[in-house]
């Protein structure tokens, strides 16, 4: 365990040095989600809130509702970006060195995701908290529920990152990930428009994204003061997703290693 932690910390530190050597990184991590959030917020002003069919959303708390969505997404987005960066390690050859060392693979992946989740999303998180504090009246929080959901949320974002990183150990083609995960996540996971109102087929698509479930739980406990028992299905599904992600990651790591041993090449494959 001590050794696992050592690898994990080393990898996080390495990633930190790797990404944050340039201040411009904050533009992509903070400014872009900010702009998208504002655009989503103002696009809501074209509508009459009397016609809205979800009882707990109103003109007062729509700002917080969307902001929670974009904050949550910035966590999930940051790991997509980190996975994208991780795939460069394969091209530049450092991945080969990591595989030659006896470092625990899971610890490496976890360290990578950990550094990006916490460092990348922190700016957006602080900003969001400030806005929410100014709009306290819009909140209707169940504190115990919020703490539980936040814990689940963090673990899930982290494992989502680890899983994506593991996928990239196997494949070199990374562009498709952005096409599949960036914008569809914004629409289908309910960041901008709540999933509850989706037509059937769109709801089925939304089930694919882990963010859908935690985001729903997060909004329920912070805007609707939902008790834990009322969101227990969402929490259970989230826990199952966490287990599945962890399992899938471990299996992928095994497969990748076997495959690499057979083909004998990490860089070019």
């Amino acid at each position, binding site marked *: 365990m001590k050794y696992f932690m050592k690898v994990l910390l080393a990898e996080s530190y390495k990633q930190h040095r790797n990404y944050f050597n340039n201040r*411009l990184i904050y533009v992509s991590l903070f*400014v872009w989600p900010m702009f998208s959030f504002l655009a989503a917020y103002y696009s809501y002003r074209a*509508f*009459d809130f009397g016609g809205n069919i*979800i009882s707990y959303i109103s003109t007062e708390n729509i700002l917080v509702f969307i902001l929670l969505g974009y904050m949550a997404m910035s966590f999930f987005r940051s790991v997509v970006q980190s996975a994208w960066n991780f795939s460069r390690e394969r091209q530049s050859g450092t991945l080969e060195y990591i595989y030659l060392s006896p470092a625990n693979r899971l610890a490496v992946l976890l360290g990578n995701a950990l550094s990006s989740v916490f460092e990348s999303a922190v700016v957006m998180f602080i900003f969001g908290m400030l806005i929410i504090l100014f709009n306290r009246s819009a909140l209707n929080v169940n504190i115990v529920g919020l703490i539980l959901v936040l814990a689940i949320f963090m673990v899930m974002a982290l494992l989502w990152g680890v899983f994506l990183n593991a996928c990239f150990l196997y494949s070199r083609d990374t562009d*498709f990930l952005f096409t599949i995960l960036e914008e569809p996540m*914004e*629409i289908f996971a309910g960041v901008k428009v709540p999933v509850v109102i989706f*037509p059937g087929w769109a709801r089925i698509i939304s089930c694919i994204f882990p963010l859908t479930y935690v985001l729903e739980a997060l909004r329920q406990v912070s805007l609707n003061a939902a008790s834990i028992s009322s969101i227990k299905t969402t929490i259970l599904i989230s826990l199952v997703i966490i287990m599945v992600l962890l399992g899938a990651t471990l299996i992928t790591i095994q497969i990748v290693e076997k495959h690499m041993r057979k083909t004998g090449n990490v860089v070019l494959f």
Partner: protein
Amino acid sequence: MDLKVLNATIKKEFQIRLHAYPMSFMVGCILTSFYTTFGAWLMYHYFFRKRLAVDFTELAGTSDYMSYAIVGSLMYLFVVRTCLNVSRTLITELREGTLESLMLAPFKRTSYFLGNMLLQTFMTFGETAIATLIGVFFGLRIHDFSLLKFVVATLLSLYGFFGLSLMLGCLMLYARDTYISQNTLFTAMFLVCGITFPKEYLPSWLQLIGSIIPVTDALTLMRGALLGGLSTESFMLVSLRVFILGTIYIVVGFPLMKQVERIALEKMEG
């Protein structure tokens, strides 16, 4: 204007597109337009059950929200594609190592950029046509079509976008970065140019930023030509504004590009 250079540029770019073009770029842009439309559709039909804010019709000039938003998203697709490709030309040459030989050749900047722009416009029309079909499916309707206005709006938009691309191109070549600069500009444009909602909803300082980007006015013109709701006088006024803005961008853009080229060549290997 040097037609030879223009012709050669178009030919060269066309060959590149034909043989070594990342299709994912094109598909990605059409998808972006689809997601914007889809989001608007969900909000309008499912979330708010077609109930619009009282001031929407007055500000937008139409009560058809879906057409309003879809024309916006199509225009956005158009801007992103043209700006992206025209402004990326020189930095792509730098990255691929052909900038040096290009600079050795006695080529006219105007023809070179115009050639790129023409080819890109042609390509983008194809993509926009696909996106329009998707738009029709989601409820795009033409209410008050005026051919003359449409032609004027298209030409002026292209003029304005050309200017904008030049400026963005300078920035890209100077900073030697495409990822941050292009995406920042595009997300900002989505916010301030009134793509899916009337720009009057924004705070005044954001409106001010929107008014110096020609996309905002070009979009007003295009909506006027397709959906109506814009009197001929105001159409002419906005047209004039797009023309002036575009001219300023182009007049500043070309000399600036020359300066930046010099800097880029100086530190090419650095």
